[in-house]
């Protein structure tokens, strides 16, 4: 498998790390709004040093999966571990890129100030952003090709540029595991290429990146690992193994499965 060969070159895969805890371990994760489940009994064990796509139809719970892992929505049940320890104890190893539409781009800050937000944990409570941190933020902007626009107010940036500074903010966090919610939404082709190059560089540095994605045509090209989601995990594994017509059909087709009907019934019952 291609993933293995590339990653062996870039991190010391000694005999002990064969049993190293996975980057993300999820067991029995269920998320419900009211009583209607949005995610149902999710189990995942994703190894480290790869770029993992999360795909599925609208309403499949892709964003919810990320938010549940990051404790941003309450879960009804389940365990989430990052490198073998509960998420809450591993927060500093985790970076998050929310959906671009989730924030107000009219907010009065510059691109540089937005990127510096990724350093807030490092800076610590109640302390101001120092010149050293601003320099680091500028480096982050440079990595995504946006150093020229550091002082630009964020509403004056194009959609692609906004997505790039979101990515720069995650990069300066210097996390080990990244969760990115639709980083390719509404970006131009050149930005998409630039973002994917950055993701691949992160993988080469031994980091693990989860990406909510929509475009099935680019799955083979972009990802090593794929999580196919439709309220539950239809399939998860190396792209070559799980990205099959049968799994696609189960993920996207056949809307009214028995499970869907059961879920609807539960939803109706709670009204």
């Amino acid at each position, binding site marked *: 498998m291609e993933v293995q060969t590339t990653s062996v070159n870039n991190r010391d895969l000694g005999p002990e790390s064969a049993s190293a805890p996975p980057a993300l371990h999820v067991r029995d994760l269920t998320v419900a709004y009211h009583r209607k489940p949005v995610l149902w009994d999710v189990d995942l064990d994703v190894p480290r040093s790869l770029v993992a796509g999360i795909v599925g139809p609208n309403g499949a719970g892709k964003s919810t999966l990320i*938010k549940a892992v*990051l*404790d*941003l929505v309450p879960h009804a049940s389940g365990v989430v571990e990052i490198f073998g320890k509960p998420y809450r104890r591993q*927060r500093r190893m*985790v*970076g*998050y890129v*929310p959906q671009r539409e*989730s*924030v*107000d781009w*009219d*907010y*009065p*800050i*510059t691109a540089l*100030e*937005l990127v510096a*937000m990724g350093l*807030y*944990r490092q*800076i610590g*409570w*109640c*302390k*101001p*952003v120092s010149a050293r941190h601003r320099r680091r933020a500028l480096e982050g902007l440079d990595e995504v090709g946006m150093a020229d626009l550091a002082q630009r*107010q964020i509403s004056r940036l194009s959609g692609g540029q906004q997505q790039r500074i979101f990515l720069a*903010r995650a990069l300066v*966090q210097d996390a080990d595991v990244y969760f990115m919610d639709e980083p390719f939404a509404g970006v131009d082709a050149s930005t998409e290429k630039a973002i994917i190059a950055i993701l691949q560089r992160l993988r080469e540095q031994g980091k693990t990146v989860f990406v909510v994605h929509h475009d099935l045509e680019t799955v083979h090209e972009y990802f090593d690992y794929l999580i196919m989601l439709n309220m539950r995990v239809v399939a998860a594994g190396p792209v070559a193994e799980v990205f099959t017509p049968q799994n696609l059909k189960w993920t996207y087709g056949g809307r009214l499965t028995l499970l869907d009907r059961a879920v609807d019934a539960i939803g109706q019952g709670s009204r």
Partner: protein
Amino acid sequence: MIWTALDSWIVLAGALAGASCALVGAFLVLRKMSMMGDAISHAVLPGIALAFILTGSRAGAVMFIGAAVVGVVSAVLVEAVRRYGNLEHGASMGVVFTVLFAVGLILIERAARHVDIYPEHVLFGAVELVPLHLVSIAGLEIPRGVAVLALMLIINLAVVAVLFKELRLATFDPGLATTLGINATAMHYLLMTLTALTTVAAFEVVGSILVVAMLIVPGATAHLLTRRLLPFLAVSVALALLAAVLGHLAAIGIPPWFGFEDTSTSGAMATVLGLFFLIAFLAAPEEGVIARGWNLAGLRLSIVTQDALGLLARAAEDPANPDGSLSASDFRSVSLSPFRSAGAGLAVALALLRARGLVAADKRRFRLTQRGQAAAREVLRVHRLWERFFYDEGGVELGELHNAADLLEHYTDSDLRRALSDRFTGQRTDPRGKRIPG
């Protein structure tokens, strides 16, 4: 108009109330939760009344605690009603704050009728009475309201100064804040607590309706004027301070001109804030209506001007038109004229081009001057390079080329022009075989 020590105290109280409100209100505006300020300012009323009924005291501290508790409870209730009642935010606030406010009014009417809380003061404030309630602090007799508001402003300034970057992140991106260990929910309720406290402190100055103006209007105005958080906050506070001074001057100064008595200072302050907003709305340098209209008019004029130059350049290439001149009606009737429907714009553009010495007029016919020819060649060059581009790279049909190039030629800045030139170095003709000048 006579200015007394009373007036100074009134202005000071108004300024302190305005500044405290503007500071927390600015964050409400940023969080797009402006109406939360409205909700809380109404909901604190039963808190004040209950605190009085339970303790029989009008002591500031008791009322503060009562109001703050109810203020935060109302913020929790709004969230709960929204989530579990399946309502949108506005409806949820509408339900919670009107009910709490009504309860508060009844409680005040019933239980507090023997003390000096009047419903109309609750609604509109009574800043004129502020100098009458004195307390002694460090041997100085100062109005109680002024002391309370000064303390409130210090608290607000301290919280914003100490938690500046945490507030910035939590109000901009609550999700990221939470993953970075800055609990956005806690920050939300901190903001709600400050809003409740500030509202109570400002109560006797501006009342529970006008306090909303103090909370929201400075932030809304500053948002039109600034692009950074610190200037945004500074401008909000400065506008509130200015409104206190101008508002009181207006309240005691203007009505006598018309033979009326002084009017309410708090009302005048809110009105002045409204005027500030109106001015910013119209005249803000980038976001204002006037600036936008001006930019749009400028863009239109530059398009018409370029079109006129382009047309004159084409006329100069026409062998049937040896002197390359066009009459005003030619501009509308030549083929591919962009002026079929343009009205006054063409006349303005031609007048402008003559003023700049690019076009000369002779017997009501217009033609390019020497300098005008250079400018016109550049317009034509960009147009034909775009046609080349769309034909070679875009596979656009010959018949569609002109329109496609027309869309872009007016938005081609020097960078793009250079890129276009580099791309088609050595290319001498457009797809129809017309020469690309330059």
